[in-house]
């Protein structure tokens, strides 16, 4: 019998909610980077079984971040714009020894690529998705992914203001829209369709302001935001994409925007959709009167609780210095005007916009404190943890490094109320946070930080520890201080290899750990390509053949997500 290369993680307290395991002491077997069923005794060549003693440790699948900004031109412009942000932050030091070598990096709100991989991994996360890449920037995003070690990655492409998309929607060409979406997902090597401020970015780029309601026509195209979201949501469903449209609604950040959000939910009723950074879209009040600003999370959460076809991530705001970055061009300008701080804008031909502004969230400022509270309301009001994912919309609401703090706020009511009392006194009257006494269990935390986002993304081998899953595992030392517990995992295992041991990154540049980039390959009507090519060559400033990302540019291993009907 051939010798097998087996690893067993022994006697950990396993939290694997996807498989109904809630704090059960058990062994986990791994082979070739995958979780396997315990081999029969005869098959174990004891001399060749690597044993890791996990006694007393909490064992969870590796964390999965469904919405983060970690790669591509927008992120890199933010790095370039903010040297001071990095100078004030603790850098990642280079390490070279006989055992391995890791690269140096800068941190702050927008860490450099190697630092991003190490920091995520050090936090127990093994997968992260970038939320907003213009298809024309896909090659750049893949290049940065190649330099982002230790985590699996993927990205969503911006289609909500794409000229071809707007044209097909205006003409009612559903089939052609689907063919284009399928073609461009493959050309870019992307995982899902992202919609940002549908129609609004194009209006801004045309010098016509923004789109403020679902039924306002997009300048020069005539279709409405309602048609864009429903059209693309339908296209994603028709292609059986593993992740539905990833939607950033119109009017982000504006008082009274919950009406637009609720209207969008109604427009999509019955269709699958992921509403991202929902906190930023849950505001009541008058647009021009900040004193009326209040939470409408309860109203939206009620709709959410009754509609299993939609999922959300929160986009939690945390206090401190960070960088706002968005594909929502007009929003960037709005923030620049509100904060009076530096503004970077970068528009991509026929596809997308971008805005970057430094921002400091202050707990004594009513609006900021209320944003913080509304995020927490969402976590506590969402009844089904399988449909809500933890996010800070890194770095928009704060860094992903704030996740342990959020976990503490969710698991400990006393700690949360203390924090609430330290914020602006006007907050309590404008939201229901003070009345919510729910406390998350460890299993619920495992759901919203790994099992649920993996399921929402359609990653069948992520977010759980059953046979066939990727052996991405995090061990935590149980601790009453949840911030400490989740900030410093005892061990992180990626694809069966120990990559973080007590805070030390164990990566060897001479044998870099293979990470994967997830993407979809949906079927599409190839007869549509000549029309796309003609349109492309008439309007872009590069050749059609130079647009698709070459396969050799992709990460060493690519992972194909299934495009077939899966049980939900």
């Amino acid at each position, binding site marked *: 019998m051939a010798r097998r290369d087996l690893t067993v993680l022994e006697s950990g307290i396993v939290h694997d909610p996807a498989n109904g395991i809630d704090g059960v002491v058990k062994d986990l077997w791994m082979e070739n980077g995958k979780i396997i069923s315990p081999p029969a005794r005869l098959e174990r060549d004891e001399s060749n079984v690597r044993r890791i003693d996990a006694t007393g440790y909490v064992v969870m699948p590796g964390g999965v971040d469904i919405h983060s900004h970690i790669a591509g031109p927008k992120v890199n412009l933010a790095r370039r714009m903010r040297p001071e942000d990095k100078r004030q932050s603790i850098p990642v030091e280079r390490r070279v020894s006989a055992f391995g070598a890791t690269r140096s990096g*800068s941190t702050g709100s927008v860490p450099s690529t190697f630092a991003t991989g190490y920091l995520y991994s050090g936090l127990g996360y093994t997968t992260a998705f970038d939320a907003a890449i213009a298809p024309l920037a896909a090659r750049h995003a893949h290049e940065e992914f190649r330099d982002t070690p230790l985590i699996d990655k993927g990205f969503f492409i911006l289609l909500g203001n794409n000229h071809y998309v707007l044209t097909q929607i205006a003409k009612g060409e559903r089939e052609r829209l689907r063919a284009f979406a399928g073609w461009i997902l493959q050309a870019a090597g992307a995982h899902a369709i992202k919609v940002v401020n549908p129609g609004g970015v194009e209006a801004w780029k045309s010098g016509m302001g923004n789109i403020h309601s679902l039924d306002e026509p997009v300048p020069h195209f005539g279709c409405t935001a309602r048609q864009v979201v429903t059209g693309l949501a339908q296209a994603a469903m028709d292609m059986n994409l593993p992740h539905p449209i990833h939607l950033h609604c119109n009017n982000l950040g504006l008082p009274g925007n919950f009406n637009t959000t609720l209207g969008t939910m109604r427009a999509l009723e019955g269709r699958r959709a992921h509403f991202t950074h929902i906190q930023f879209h849950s505001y009541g009040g008058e647009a021009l009167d900040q004193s009326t600003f209040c939470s409408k999370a309860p109203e939206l959460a009620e709709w959410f609780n009754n509609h299993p076809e939609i999922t959300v991530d929160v986009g939690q705001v945390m206090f401190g210095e960070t960088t706002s970055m968005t594909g929502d061009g007009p929003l960037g300008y709005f923030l620049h005007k509100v904060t009076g701080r530096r503004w970077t804008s970068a528009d991509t031909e026929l596809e997308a916009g971008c805005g970057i502004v430094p921002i400091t969230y202050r707990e004594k400022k009513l609006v900021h404190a209320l944003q913080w509270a509304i995020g927490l309301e969402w976590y506590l009001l969402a009844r089904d943890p399988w449909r809500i994912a933890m996010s800070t919309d890194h770095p928009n609401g704060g860094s992903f490094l704030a996740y342990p703090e959020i976990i503490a706020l969710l698991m400990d009511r006393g700690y949360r109320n203390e924090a609430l009392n330290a914020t602006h006194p006007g907050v309590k009257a404008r939201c229901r946070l003070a009345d919510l006494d729910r406390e998350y269990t460890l299993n619920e935390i495992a759901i919203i930080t790994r099992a649920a986002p993996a399921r929402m993304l359609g990653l069948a081998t992520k977010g759980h520890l059953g046979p066939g899953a990727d052996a991405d595992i995090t061990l935590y030392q149980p601790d009453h201080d949840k911030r400490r517990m989740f900030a410093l995992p005892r061990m992180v295992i990626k694809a069966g290899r120990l990559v973080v041991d007590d805070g030390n990154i164990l990566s060897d540049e001479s044998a870099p750990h293979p990470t994967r980039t997830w993407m979809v390959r949906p079927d599409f009507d190839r007869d549509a390509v000549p029309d796309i090519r003609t349109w492309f060559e008439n309007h872009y400033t590069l050749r059609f053949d130079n647009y698709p990302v070459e396969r050799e540019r992709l990460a060493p291993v690519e992972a194909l997500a299934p495009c077939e009907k899966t049980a939900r």
Partner: protein
Amino acid sequence: MASRDKTDPILPNNSATPAVCTGCGCLCDDVTVSPSGGSLVANTHGCAKGKYWLELRPGPKVSAFLNGRPAPLKKAINAAADILWKSNNPLVFGLEQVTCESAAKVVAISDWLGANLDTTASFNQGPTGLAFQGVGEISCSLGEVRNRADLILFWGADPLVTHPRHTSRYSIDPPGVHVPLGRKNRFVVVIDSEANQTASQADLWLRPKPGRDFELIWALRAMIQGREIAGYDSAANGVGLEELEGLAHRLKGCRFGVLFFGDRLLAGPGHHLNADGAVSLAHDINAHTRFYARPLRRAGNPMGSESVTCWQTGYPFGLNLARGFPRYNPGEFTARRLINSGESDVLLTVGVSPGDYLNSGNANGPHSFQHIHIGDGLPDEWQSPPKVEIRTAPFATAASGTVYRMDDISLPLRPLSMSQLPDMEQVLTELEGTILERMRNSSPPTEMAAS
């Protein structure tokens, strides 16, 4: 010196193959090249600069030199690794004619060594980088300009000379979605104190007195913001207030305007204020209409290598890795000062003609340094032979990888010819491996524990 050697095209016979021309920052990808009599003939749509750039030239046969004498490649790489590894304060400089993949290797090498790392941006586009950090950046891809712009303003720039197809491909002439008549739908302005060929195509040419650009920018900003202007000296500035008011009116009234600024706006000390002003002016105009400001970038892949440096370290140029992590301080960690002050004992130049930027006399002068060069052969003007020189396959025609256009759009570069010289990325990969090996075998475990 180098003997003549024929570099062979690898294109299929007689076929016109699409190519990306890196002869200027435009990175035109609509050019084609065909093999002809052992050389390449490029159809660059009338651009002489591109035609010259894509020509196959007889190249050197020997790839590696030690102290000016031919040596085996492996020996040269080992020698380079030894010199770099033993250096106290190495400076890594260049990254113009490199792919992003090669640039990534150079940043890695700098990281392992704890070197200073600087790109040629610190000599020309440095002010732009500083301005972006001060006020931000407001840019768009060149297709946005082509499809929407009805006002084009070139400031301190003469694209007809420096970027010959910029005007026909992206800015002045081409019809676009919202400017269907091309040139007829656009108002073109040139502001330049010097003779300017592009001005012949412009609707308006303003000629400030040399060094007075900042005064014009600031007056325009005041006008756009609706402020009173006091003490503007028309005679000293070379442009009258009325002319300027006419321009301000146009800037506010356009539908989509873009300011392209060139090296002439950025020349001289303190002129990052000009870049700062150009971006701030674009910011101001956005209170009225859509307006952008972009620098015109040079040949090769400076955008790409800056981008790579930035994503790997957080900073685009002028950085130091000696403390084990990146620190950024242009002026302190930029090439000019490190060479002139004699602080760097070893200079590694990659993908650049160092004589264009650095004074070769210093190699033998009071501030001597050991020089290692990787890239195209050094020109004769660079007098002192480097300690180690490795000539790699010509970037223009034989490199393969990713390059970035001046507007941050990436394009694939494919080799058009076969060179007997080694591939730069491979040389750098070997150099990195050799340096790491030296470091690993010598660093005692205690060093890691202490750090």
